[in-house]
């Protein structure tokens, strides 16, 4: 007699469910012939017979779960080829070390060091260099003179504003209001006295701190070291206010001028009938909002269509390096995001792998993090094409500046209902103007228009599901 046992199918397995007998009691089985099946955690396993002979006893019925090494059947092998060692079905448990099925998880992207002083990210990368500008030490803004005037009691917002605008040290102003409070009249009086008397300029403007990283990567850019302004003449004090540019502002300024100097900018404008997209959006925006918690805008449709255009015309997704054309195999689309005092162009990587939902999510996420200054440096690098959505501010047509080292940028105007002539009849359609600014060094007008026509055609014949 050979005992047939419930085999152990793995380190952590203590029991198994016998799901099916492949032989009935009384049947003859060959050694290694499948005898029964067990099931553990989505795995069905055929168990071969440990011996040849007659299945004399079936001890565990189908559907029962029993511990490992429980005898489930007996095989009478006396009539067969003589006695055989039992328990052949027990697949040598523990033959292999328990080596956990853990995989060395792919190294997670290195956590971005978030510099203490708060980082500012530049508008666009120059040649893939790390483009983080650590801002000058905690922006010593004009010291708030108002704050120093504690003795003078609470200050009205108007007085604070006047003090700030005129650069007045309020501790020097005599308050005549209730409890010695400084009033508007006190400030005006102080100002007139100041202008009468020759005075040294109060708090000379901060010499603009040159951003540490500004110089090295700008290829040819003679970085405008901001001219050290001479302290303005006292008389002009009230007519202008001098303030150093922020590191971001300097970077934008430098980048824009560099781009205009580098590329031969030409802009072509196509009129696009967005009615079909508008209908899809109208139909699905409520569901979209409920399902994904974000609203559905026109922008992801435009990005999706631009991706199709870039696939068809890869030259628009290229850049120039010396006398070479660099074709990028990835389509990484920069989306211009307006900030309070600047703009930044975070990049949707592999935009060709995202549908409208994926693009809308990426746009919302990147824009939110751009505004809260939480973008990682590599999220503003590596763009191969850019899109700017000035339509969201009501602009109908604009001529954007190319985001170097890219060779084209697509501007999206506001979508507005307009009367248009279709088949000699007047119809109301949702119209949007797309402006493509391209670098004429690399792209000729015909290609630029073919590209824009492709984008237009995808939008006008929109066919993709959104939900």
């Amino acid at each position, binding site marked *: 007699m050979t005992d047939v046992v419930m085999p152990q199918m793995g380190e952590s397995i203590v029991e198994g469910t016998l799901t099916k007998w492949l032989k009935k009691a009384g049947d003859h089985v060959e050694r290694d012939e499948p005898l029964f099946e067990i099931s553990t955690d989505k795995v*069905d*396993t055929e168990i071969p017979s440990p011996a040849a002979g007659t299945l004399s006893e079936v001890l565990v019925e189908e559907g029962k779960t029993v511990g490992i090494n429980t005898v489930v059947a007996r095989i009478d092998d006396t009539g067969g080829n003589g006695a055989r060692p039992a328990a052949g079905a027990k697949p040598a448990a523990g033959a292999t070390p328990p080596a956990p099925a853990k995989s060395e998880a792919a190294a997670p992207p290195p956590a971005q060091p978030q510099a203490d002083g708060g980082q500012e990210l530049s508008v666009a990368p120059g040649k893939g260099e790390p483009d983080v500008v650590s801002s000058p030490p905690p922006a010593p803004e004009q010291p708030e003179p108002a704050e120093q005037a504690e003795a003078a009691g609470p200050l009205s917002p108007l007085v604070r504003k006047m003090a700030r605008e005129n650069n007045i040290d309020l501790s020097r102003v005599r308050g005549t209001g209730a409890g010695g409070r400084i009033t508007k009249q006190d400030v005006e009086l102080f100002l007139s006295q100041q202008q009468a008397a020759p005075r040294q300029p109060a708090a000379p403007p901060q010499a603009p701190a040159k951003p540490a990283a500004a110089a090295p990567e700008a290829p040819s850019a003679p970085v405008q070291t901001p001219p050290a302004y001479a302290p303005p003449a006292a008389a002009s004090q009230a007519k202008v206010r001098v303030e150093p540019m922020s590191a971001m502002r300097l970077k934008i300024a430098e980048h824009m001028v560099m781009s205009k100097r580098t590329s031969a900018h030409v802009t072509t404008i196509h009129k696009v009938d967005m009615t079909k997209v508008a209908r899809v959006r109208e139909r699905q925006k409520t569901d979209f909002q409920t399902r994904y918690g974000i609203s559905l805008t026109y922008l992801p449709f435009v990005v999706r269509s631009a991706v199709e255009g870039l696939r068809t015309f890869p030259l628009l997704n290229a850049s120039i390096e010396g006398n070479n054309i660099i074709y990028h195999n990835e389509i990484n689309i920069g989306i211009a995001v307006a900030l309070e005092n600047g703009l930044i162009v975070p990049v949707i990587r592999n935009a060709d792998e995202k549908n409208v939902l994926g693009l809308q999510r990426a746009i919302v996420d990147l824009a939110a993090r751009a505004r809260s200054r939480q973008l990682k440096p590599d999220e503003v690098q590596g763009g191969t094409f850019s899109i700017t959505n000035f339509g969201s501010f009501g602009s109908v047509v604009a001529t954007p500046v190319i985001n170097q080292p890219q060779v084209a940028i697509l501007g999206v105007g506001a979508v507005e209902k307009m009367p248009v002539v279709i088949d000699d009849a007047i119809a109301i359609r949702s119209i949007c103007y797309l402006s493509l600014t391209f670098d004429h060094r690399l792209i000729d007008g015909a290609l630029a228009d073919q590209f824009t026509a492709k984008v237009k055609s995808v939008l006008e014949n929109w066919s993709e599901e959104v939900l």
Partner: protein
Amino acid sequence: MRNCSWRDLGRMDYAEAFDLQSSLVDQRKRGEIPDQFLFVEHPHTITLGRNGHMENLLAHEDVLRRAGVAFHPSDRGGDITYHGPGQIVGYPIIDLREWKRDVVAYVRSIEQVAIDALADFGISAGRLQGMTGVWVDGAKIAAIGVHISRWITSHGFALNVATDLSYFQYIVPCGLAKPVTSMAALGNIARREHVIERLVFHFGRVFDCEMAELGAVAV
């Protein structure tokens, strides 16, 4: 290092793929071929595991036939599932005796391969305690069902890339009242070959074998 041949068979009927697997399992048992990793895409098919429950099939077979969905009982583990266009079905045929004699570790590792591949597309997938498969926010993105015969594996997993999820309405997937999802439903339109490339890469890493692509020749 062990070798594993992989290939993408493209669109293939469930029955045809089943026969191919059986033949490869036999050859693998006899040691005639190295481990195999097959990729296929099935036409609309609903399959029921050996221990599946017919009540999880919600539509009558006539309804399925009219909808152009084939129905196959199968000898894999697990309950009922749907296969169809836009889904990557992976069938590893490997000899666990040369890796680990542990079917649970095997299933966990298959999950890991899918989880790691999805991570390469920015999708953060994971496991749900006690529920085999790969999940994203409580929805199943990859189903697993395995058959083992003398430590040789067959069947495997089905990863929803751009699957039309509406076909899951005909069943209670895997017998669980849980939603299903796909890479597309999560906003990703990765190309099939790109996903396969990542699956192959992570399979080689997790199972510690050398992956070699085999031309799609009949075996």
